[in-house]
């Protein structure tokens, strides 16, 4: 590792109009060539800290910085955002929010053009970095027409073309599907492999990235709470869980085996190494009968039999030339919790938009509670099927929370008395009745999401579709949201259809999973049945939870464990060959 490059010396920062500091007395030193991962729950101060490195804070945001931030000993308060852009290049979360040029080539040229470089040099930079991200064939395409992963790759190439000394990647995959995330992670790996690059990555998804970094910094409430080598920091997985950071499942399993005195396996953040470590320690012959007995005790989801939505031979295309859904058959059962998983473009959102009539089949049929969706309107179906969109800001428009929640019931023509009663009940159920007189735009994103759900629930639908409820959220926020949806399922007996990319979430909450790929259903069944089919999932670029893959690849192929608890139950039946060696 090289010399010290970045230094935060007792740095604190408070946003304008806020009393509590976002970053509190942080001291941090990063060396040249180091790849540092900063994680922590939302609001921990990660992005704020990074934004000081390119002077966005305080120049663009205002507010007060205390302490000193320096690069190579130079105090950054002497520099402008414009100058810092070529020293600390920053890649943001939302790919579509940072692509501003008409073509991919123009996008990559934008930074070098701003620096005033000669045209020949700019063209050489475009040529170098468009090749680096393998997008030469898309050079004349408008970036807005690309997929999320491709857009983020273009944005990444645009940062690379500025050739900064430091790369700051702020949750670069939080808005992407697994395929897009993999594309961006592979590029990060490429940069990480280049010894001259110093990179600071902010990320919640530790499993995919942890293996590429030299150092893990964990922040909470504006402070650094852990800082060190990833394996060393992750031994504190229980404390990390408490502040809302989910350690990779392989780390959780290995730590728990050690804590239980079962086996002291070498901690690793790499799945392949973990598989080798575990399979090396497993007994030569597995006690299959005992494992099967444990497996019989694994919870099995309830079976539901009364279909409320019946899809038969559904075909659909947004225009006559391209068909998106190719003859789908599926049933949604009353009272079940169903997750539909698949990559972007697999057709999962397109199919659920048929459930409330936003889209009508071009072939086949969709029946909701026995009524053909072709024969009714979206408004008519909205009393039966509620649709919660991913971003609450796509639906909130009132200046008062109560009016926002009343909007749906009013559209249904309910008498005022019924509206008041239902809205009041929904507010109490979701514990948001104290927010009724507030302006939704003054509330947090999490609260706005609750209001968006309340606004749908107030219409008393029997089926609730929830579109990607965990995208862009930290693990704790994801669980809070999903716990609420599960509660609606269990306590109010709502039929739930969740669209998600997050396989661990699907495993934890669903009774049933449907896997879609290229407009067809390729698998369906209980989470255990679906995750047992690793090859099939891989064919659609999906992966079962990490712990499932760990056990399967280590040789424990049956029964299928779908979470850490189940894995521990199976592993506790085994006698390890390294048991207690280091304990």
């Amino acid at each position, binding site marked *: 590792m090289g010399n010290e490059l970045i230094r935060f010396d007792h740095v604190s920062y408070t946003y304008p109009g806020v009393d509590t500091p976002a970053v509190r007395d942080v001291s941090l030193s990063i060396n040249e060539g180091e790849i540092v991962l900063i994680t922590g729950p939302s609001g921990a101060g990660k992005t704020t800290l990074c934004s000081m490195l390119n002077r966005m804070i305080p120049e663009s945001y205002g507010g007060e910085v205390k302490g000193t931030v320096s690069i190579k000993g130079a105090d950054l308060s002497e520099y402008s955002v414009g100058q810092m*852009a070529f020293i600390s290049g920053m890649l943001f979360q939302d790919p579509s929010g940072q692509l501003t040029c008409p073509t991919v080539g123009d996008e990559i040229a934008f930074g070098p053009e701003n620096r005033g470089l000669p045209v020949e040099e700019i063209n050489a930079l475009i040529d170098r970095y468009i090749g680096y991200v393998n997008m030469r064939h898309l050079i004349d395409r408008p970036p807005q027409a690309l997929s999320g992963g491709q857009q983020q790759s273009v944005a990444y190439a645009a940062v690379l073309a*500025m050739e900064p000394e430091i790369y700051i990647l702020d949750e670069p995959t939080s808005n992407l599907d697994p395929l897009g995330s993999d594309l961006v992670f592979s590029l990060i790996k490429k940069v990480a492999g280049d010894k001259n690059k110093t990179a600071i990555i902010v990320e919640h998804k530790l499993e995919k990235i942890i293996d590429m970094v030299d150092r893990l910094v964990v922040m909470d409430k504006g402070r650094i709470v852990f800082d060190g080598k990833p394996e060393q920091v992750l031994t504190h997985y229980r404390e990390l869980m408490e502040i809302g950071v989910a350690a990779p499942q392989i780390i959780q399993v290995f730590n728990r085996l050690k804590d239980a005195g079962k086996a002291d396996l070498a901690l690793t953040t790499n799945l392949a190494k973990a598989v080798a470590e575990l399979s090396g320690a497993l007994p030569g012959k597995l006690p299959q009968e005992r494992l099967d007995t444990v497996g019989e005790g694994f919870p099995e989801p309830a079976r539901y039999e009364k279909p409320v939505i019946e899809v038969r031979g559904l075909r659909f295309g947004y225009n006559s030339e391209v068909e998106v859904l190719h003859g789908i058959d599926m049933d949604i059962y009353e009272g079940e919790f169903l997750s539909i998983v698949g990559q972007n473009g697999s057709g999962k959102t397109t199919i659920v938009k048929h459930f409330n009539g936003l889209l009508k089949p071009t072939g086949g049929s969709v029946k909701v509670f026995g009524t053909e969706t072709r024969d009714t309107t*979206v408004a008519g179906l909205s009393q039966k099927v509620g649709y919660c969109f991913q971003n609450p800001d796509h639906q*909130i428009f009132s200046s008062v929370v109560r009016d926002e929640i009343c909007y749906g019931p009013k559209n249904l023509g309910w008498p005022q008395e019924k509206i008041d009663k239902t809205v009041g009940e929904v507010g109490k159920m979701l514990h948001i009745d104290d927010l009724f007189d507030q302006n939704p735009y003054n509330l947090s994103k999490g609260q706005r999401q609750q209001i968006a759900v309340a606004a*749908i629930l107030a219409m008393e639908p029997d089926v609730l579709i929830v579109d990607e409820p965990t995208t862009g959220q930290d693990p704790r926020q994801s669980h809070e949201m999903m716990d609420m949806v599960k509660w609606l399922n269990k306590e109010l007996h709502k039929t739930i259809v969740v669209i998600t990319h997050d396989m661990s979430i699907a495993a934890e909450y669903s009774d049933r999973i449907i896997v879609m790929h290229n407009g067809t259903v390729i698998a369906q069944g209980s989470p255990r049945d679906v995750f047992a089919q690793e090859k099939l999932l891989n064919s659609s670029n999906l992966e079962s939870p990490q712990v499932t893959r760990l056990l399967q690849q280590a040789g424990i192929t049956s029964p299928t464990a779908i979470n850490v608890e189940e894995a521990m139950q199976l592993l506790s039946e085994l006698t390890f060959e390294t048991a207690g060696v280091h304990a």
Partner: protein
Amino acid sequence: MNKAVEKSFLYSLDPRTKMLLLLILIFVGVMVMDPFLTIVMMAGAYAMYRVSGISHKEVKRITKPLLLAFILFFLLNFPFATPLPNEQVFFYLLPNQTIPITMTGILTGFGNGLRFILFIWIADLITTVTPTGDIVLALNKARIPPEASIAIGIAFSYIPVLKKEISTVIEAQKSRGANFESKNPYKKVKAYIPVIVPGLFISIMKGREIARAIEARGFTYDPVNRTYRNEIRFKGRDFAVIAIMLAAFAVVAYFSIGKGWFGTRFVYDLLA
């Protein structure tokens, strides 16, 4: 942009020529009040669409939402146009000889409605055949500050993104039982408030995001001396088009302003 458009004559012109073309066509459109001549100009605009590689289907798609505006223009114009002295009144819209309906009124309503469609067509055609990057370069040549020209370029690039956002908002509100199909114009406008507010909010948020993104790419480093990788240059065909357009403009202006031709009843009176 499709390949046929990129190969078209209009696309190959310098963006400044296209801007001048747009201005002259709009001025000519303003001077020619006659609905029959407006139809002739529309036929010309349609021909330009087609030779520029834009399909009939695409023109239809652009025109369909304009029909409502055409009807509104007609309804708001035809009863209020000043009739000629002693002109035949077909009937009165209200009792006590209030709001006379005359041929001048009908021709004015048609003319204004058609001109509205013509203006949208011309603006759409010119922006379709002009890459956004060229618009920025043309504005720079016109000595518009780079902050403004880049902002205009970004605004053009973001139109599809905002369209997508707005259609998601519409779907979200439809899912809450919203009805946008009302025939009552007041109700129709009111129904769109739940679309306009989130649309504005999302646009403002996106605007902030973009501002930070371009700052992070060094836009504020030295905007005046930034490099523009692409260049624009007038070619022979540009001079030819400009000469023809200026000549056409002069002819129309001479006959329109000097001789009083091309008024609302110009062709009708010739034929009558």
